[in-house]
Each structure stands twice: as C-alpha cells, then as structure tokens.
C-alpha cells in the first residue's frame, strides 16, 4: 500500500489555545477525493488548516477568503501560485515587468476559469464571483499532489461552480474540499468526513452514504 499523504492519530486540533476538534484520527491516501461537511463552527476550516500544515507534498490551497492581494492585477495573483518555483530576482522582475511567456501561461489558466480578458485588471475591481475564479486559477496554476479548498465555489452559480469544480479536481490526483452542499459532496467525492459537535461523526465512502444520512450533521 502507498504511503498516506497525511496521518492524524487521536489528535486535538484548534487555534489560539482553544480546541475545536477532539480525538481526530485520519489517513488520507493518494487518489482520494474527500469532502468535509458540517455546520458552521463545527471545525471544518480547523481540520483543513491542520491538513495544510502536516502535508509534506506540493499542495494548492483555495482559502475561504480567497487570499488575494487586491492591489495587484489578476495576472499577478495567479502567478503568485508559482512564486516559490523561482528565485527572488526573477520574482522581482515578474512583479514589475512580466514576460510575454509568463502572461501567456497565466492567460491559458484564466481561460479555463472564464476570465480570459481580465489579466491586467486589478483584483480590487472584480466581483465576488470573479475573485473566486482568480483564486481557483491560482490553485490550477500552482498544481501539485494535493488540492485543499475551503468552500471554493460558494460565490459562483451552481452550474458554473460544478463545472469549474470538476475541472479543478481533474487537475489534482488527491483533494480535500470543505463543502456546504450535501448533493455536490455526494456527486464529486469518493469519501465524506462529517463533523459534528467538535468531533468526527461520519467518515465513510461516499457510495455508502445518502443525502439523508448527511443531513443528520446539520440537525
């Protein structure tokens, strides 16, 4: 069996000295598509952050607030995904004077999220949905072995959101996404982790679960 990407055994997770999740045991293997579900405040983001901190592979993260820099252009925000592949001098040059090849590489990714012509626009001028697309484009640009997303398509309309999610999931071998839509989770995930009252309440293959089972998490 292949080495798991992340392993948690009986751990308490939290932030600022407060425990949000107790006694978490998880193994995440290559090839899994995991959806995390639960009411707000159940500890979904805490779990995702813990996975982000432990994973020792190249990963792309789509945070809940998108993590964009409003004063920079769409191009720069997308290119930010691959900053650590280049040296400081190159990054400085790209910040001031992006090359045609760099612009073209970003333009290809922007096309897949439907933001073709907006590369030079500053992110602060974009709508909420457009911003989320920029965040998705950055994750795509970065690539890697693992995709972590915290409600990555909430600001998009359901149809487009689903299409973009499928597209992004196809680009990463393994993914862990916090989702709020039970049906979407059942559609895209191979495994579902449900959180309730500060603990893991459900951890099962998606094929073994129904929407009714999962709605219990929100009661």
């Amino acid at each position, binding site marked *: 069996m292949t080495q798991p990407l992340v392993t948690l055994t009986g751990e308490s997770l939290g932030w600022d000295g407060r425990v949000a999740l107790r006694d978490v045991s998880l193994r995440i293997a290559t090839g899994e598509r995991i959806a995390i579900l639960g009411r707000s405040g159940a500890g979904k983001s805490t779990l995702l952050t813990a996975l982000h901190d432990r994973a020792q592979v190249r990963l792309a993260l789509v945070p809940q607030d998108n993590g964009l820099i409003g004063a920079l252009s769409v191009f720069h925000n997308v290119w930010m995904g691959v900053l650590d592949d280049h*040296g*400081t001098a190159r990054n400085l040059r790209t910040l001031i004077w992006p090359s045609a090849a760099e612009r073209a590489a970003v333009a290809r990714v922007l096309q897949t999220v439907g933001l073709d012509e907006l590369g030079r626009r500053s992110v602060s001028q974009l709508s909420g949905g457009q911003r989320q697309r920029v965040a998705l484009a950055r994750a795509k640009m970065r690539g890697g072995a693992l995709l972590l997303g915290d409600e990555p398509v909430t600001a998009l309309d359901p149809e487009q959101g689903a299409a973009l999610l499928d597209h992004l999931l196809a680009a990463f071998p393994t993914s862990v996404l916090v989702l709020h839509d039970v049906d979407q989770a059942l559609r895209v995930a191979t495994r579902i982790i449900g959180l309730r009252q500060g603990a893991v309440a459900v951890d099962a293959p998606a094929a073994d679960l129904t929407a009714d089972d999962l709605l219990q998490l929100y009661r």
Partner: protein
Amino acid sequence: MILRRRHVLAGFAALTLVAISSAELGAIRPDPWMTLAAIGRGILHPDFSDIAGLLRATGLTVAFAFCGVGLGAVLGLLLAPFYGTAVVRLTCIAVRSVHELFWALLLLGLTGLSPLTGVLAIGLPYAGIFAKVFAEYLEDAPGAAPLGRRLPSLTALLWVRFPQSLPQMRTYTLYRLECGLRSSAVLGFIGLPTLGFQLETAFKQAQYGQAAAVLALFLALILPLRFWVIWRLVPLMLAAAATALIMLPTPPMGQGALMRFLTGIVPSPLRTGGDWGSWLDKVLVQQALPGSMDTLILSQIALAAAALIAAVAFPAIVPGVVGRVGAVIGHGVLVVLRSIPDYMLAFVLLQVLGPSMLPAILALGLHNGAIIAHLLGRQAASLPQHTGAPRGVTLWAWDLFPRLSPAFWALCLYRWEIILRDSAIMGLLGIGTLGFYIQSNVQTLRMDRVVALLVVSGLLTLLIDTVSRRLRRAMRDGPPLRIEASRRLAT
C-alpha cells in the same frame, strides 16, 4: 498602575499655573490696534501687483514640498523593512526629533542657501517618520496569502505585504505632502525663496496687502490639495519640481565646505584644546538650560491653550450643536487654522502683539487646537444619537464631551510632543526657547554649539514623547485611536 484621568488633569493644571506664573507674557506693543487695523485693511485689499514674484514663490513652495516629501517617502520606504533593527530605529528617531527648520539651519553651514538645503531639511526628518509609519503598515498587512512555504522574505515583502499596504501608504503620503507644503513655506523664513520669504518681506515693509495675497495663495494651494494631486501625474510633478529646483541659481559655497562643516561640528575644546569646563558651562548652563526651561514653559501653556480651544471649538463642526450652516462655517474656520503653519501664525501675531511668549502661545494653541477640534468634531458628528436627543450646548456638555473625553485626552497627549518641537522653533522669532540660542550660534558660526543644542532639543522631544506614551497607556481608558492614518500614536 492605572492613573486616573483626574490625577493627570490636576497635574497638568498645576504645571500650567506654574508655567504661566514664570512666563513672560507682558510687553504689549504701544498700540496693537493700529497694526491690527492696518492688517485688516490689507486683508480687505489684497495686493497681487507682483503676481509674477508671487507665482514663482508659490511654484517653488510646491517644488520644495514635492522633492522633500518624495525624498523622505523613498528613503522611508527603503528603511521600513529594517525598522525592527535597533540601528535603523534609533537613526530614524534621531533624525525626526530635529525639526525641519533646525535641519535647515544646520545644513546652511554645509550646502548654503541652495535648493538642496531645503530638500534635505524636509526629506531627512520626514524619512524618519515615513520609515516608522510604513513599517507599521507593512507589519499590519496580512501576510497569509496561500503561497509556498519557503518563499524568500524579499519576495513575500514585495508580492504580498507591500501591495496590501499601498493604499494606506498613498493616503499617508498625501497627508505628509500637506505637512511638507507647510514646512516648505516656513523654510522661507530662513531665506529660501518660498512663500514664507514673501510673507516676511511684506510684513517687514508693512505691505499688509501683499502679505494677505501671500496667505491667500498659500491657502489656495493647500486647501484643495486632495483635488490637484493626481497619483498618475505625480512622477511628472516630481520631475517638474526637481527641474525647477535645479534651475534655481545657487549662491557659491566656496571650496572645502564639507571639511569646514565636519570640523565645525566638533566641540571646540577637542579642536583647539580649549577648556571643557567653560564650553560646557556656556552651552549647557547658559544656553541649553534656559532654552529648555522656556521651551517647556511655552509648550505647557500652549498645550493647555490647545486643549481649551479644542474642547470649546470641536462642536463647531457638529450640526447637532451649531446647526447645518454653523457647521459649514465652523469647518471652514478650523480647516484654515489647521492649514496655516503655527510658525507663520506666530510671526503674524508677533507683529500685532509685540515680542513676548503670547503670540507663540496663541499660534500653537490655535493651530493645534484646531487640529484636535477637527478630529474630535468629525468623530462627534458620526456618533449615533437617539431621536429627541438634546441640541446645542446641552448636547455638547451632557453627551458629546463626556463620550469623547477619552479620545480628547489621547489627542491632547499626542499633540504634546509636536507642540514641544514647535515651541523650540519659536525661538527663531526672538522668544527665549532653544531655537533662539540655536539661531544665535548659527549666526556666529559656532556649529559645535548648534549640534549640542540640537541634541538637547532632540532629547527633550524624546522625553516628552515617552512621558506622553506612558500616560496614554497608564490612563488606558480610551479606545485605540488612529490619528493621521498611523497606528500606535494614541493607543
């Protein structure tokens, strides 16, 4: 220990009484009304006959401000990432504790009456201020963009922290540009060709119509600043400003000015093997001591005056107290008082009231009081009021002042250090504060004493800054305030 506000207040009141009793407030001119009437006639009939000269001085005032603030902002930006290191922080504290006018007096010995003197006099202290404020912005910027973990700090700084701080930096730079215009105008009083020079000349020749024209031009420049500074055009404006200053004829300094300057600032006992005792006695006991005493006395009374003026005047821009029309008028008066440099105001009042501490007290009180009043008033106008709330003076006394008093005290304490710095400068007008002794040493080319007195003035500023910050922290009864877009000033 948590100090009660009333303890601090009682201490301040006692100190102010002591200061007033030892201040020289007399020496009213034989007939201030005559001068006042003449000035009044001048204001009613401003004299723009020398429009070419006035416009040239206006242009140069802008040029000095742009180049000085530009230099300060660039230096500050370069220093900001290193503000955590002790060397950079202490250097910045030292350069900004010396007032622009003092920098100019010191640099006169090095670069003479050249444009460089004016640019450095503004740029150096501003660099210290910019470095501090920009460092705070960079530190406050969220650094949590989901980037790779091994990103070099320079890349993270330029890609993440700097772009996020940029809007605040722009706002602050614009505010500093307003200060720079004031500094630039005041530099005219020591001979640079800006509006201050025109004002002084006009007053000395009793041409009050011309003086009124100078003031009108200055206000026309500084009041609509936010409308004529267009960010896209700033590089162009900077280039034009630099060109204008380079074209300015420069009086020759002669050979070896740098060496002369460097040897000149070495204390004379070291240079000539003279007696340390008499030098120290002359500099510290006969000059620094009385100069510091008068600086402290002036700043104490001026602070009390500013607090009083602010407390009474802040409702002048609150519609609930003075009505809608009254608020517009109040706003106009406060903004004008805030925009005129206190040194300029003191110079004008001195012509009316004659030489004593009174003009400086009034000028510092009015200028700083207007600044505090304006900040407080804006806060007061935005306070939520229930329907049927009292109006007029009752609203001020029963509602606004009690609710705003923590902010009020924090603002007064914050202006204390600035009032002290400006009190030292008032000596250039002939009042016995540190500036008086510094100027007389400049005139007799004793630059070693100038430097010693500047160090004393810097230490005095630091002392007040420290006491003020301790008091603000000890009183601890106000919400943290953001003043002039900076963070820790009044917390």
